[in-house]
């Protein structure tokens, strides 16, 4: 009984049903757990691991330098940039905007740097549904290859104060 002390020696062999269940559970767990390292080498969707320290001021300067160099227009008062695929792309999170609007080319690989000016934010590309954390004082570098054209939106999905639900940015893939 689970509510009484067991007999003196309870280290006993398994019954057949226990053996079967333990074996199939272990087998399935083994499959599921080798998936992570195998997909890490074989697959193309993995959490990025390139990361640096950067102060908000430094990051802000990098964002502004990129806008000056690659600005192609404005939308809703926000600059639109079309960066060169060989150059790093910077997207800045702050309460409560994603800045600036970025145009990417389909099939090209970009290094997208994410950092926050103030508190933690969540970077969620919709409707493709890819999600990453954005922290102040850290730079998270996504090596991203957009494979479908269209208009995408960046929604904040980590609570960041009363304007959280208004924190929406935009991303084009052309």
């Amino acid at each position: 009984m689970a509510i009484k002390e067991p007999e003196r020696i309870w280290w006993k062999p398994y019954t057949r049903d226990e053996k079967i269940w333990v074996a199939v559970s272990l087998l399935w767990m083994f499959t599921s757990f080798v998936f992570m390292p195998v997909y890490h080498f074989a697959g193309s969707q993995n959490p990025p691991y390139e990361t640096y320290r950067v102060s908000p001021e430094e990051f802000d300067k990098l964002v502004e330098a990129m806008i000056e160099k690659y600005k192609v227009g404005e939308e809703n008062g926000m600059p639109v940039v079309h960066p060169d695929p060989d150059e790093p792309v910077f997207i800045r999170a702050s309460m409560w905007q994603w800045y600036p609007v970025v145009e990417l080319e389909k099939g090209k690989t970009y290094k997208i740097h994410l950092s926050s000016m103030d508190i933690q934010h969540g970077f969620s590309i919709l409707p493709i549904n890819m999600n990453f954390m954005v922290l102040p004082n850290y730079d998270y570098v996504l090596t991203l290859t957009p494979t479908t054209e269209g208009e995408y939106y960046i929604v904040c999905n980590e609570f960041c104060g009363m304007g959280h639900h208004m924190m929406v940015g935009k991303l084009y893939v052309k």
Partner: protein
Amino acid sequence: MTDEKHRESEEEPIPAWQLFYDNIFLLFFFGIAIPTLVYTVWGLMEIVQIPQLPIAP
């Protein structure tokens, strides 16, 4: 392990694994040590090793 007093009365020895499972404080030690090392200490080591952004102005 303080086994003497059981051995007097009963003949069959208790399997070693059973003694291990009954030793709550040994389990306690491993239960604290494993996650602290593998998760916390390793994580902190990675945090202090993060480099500065090389292209920062």
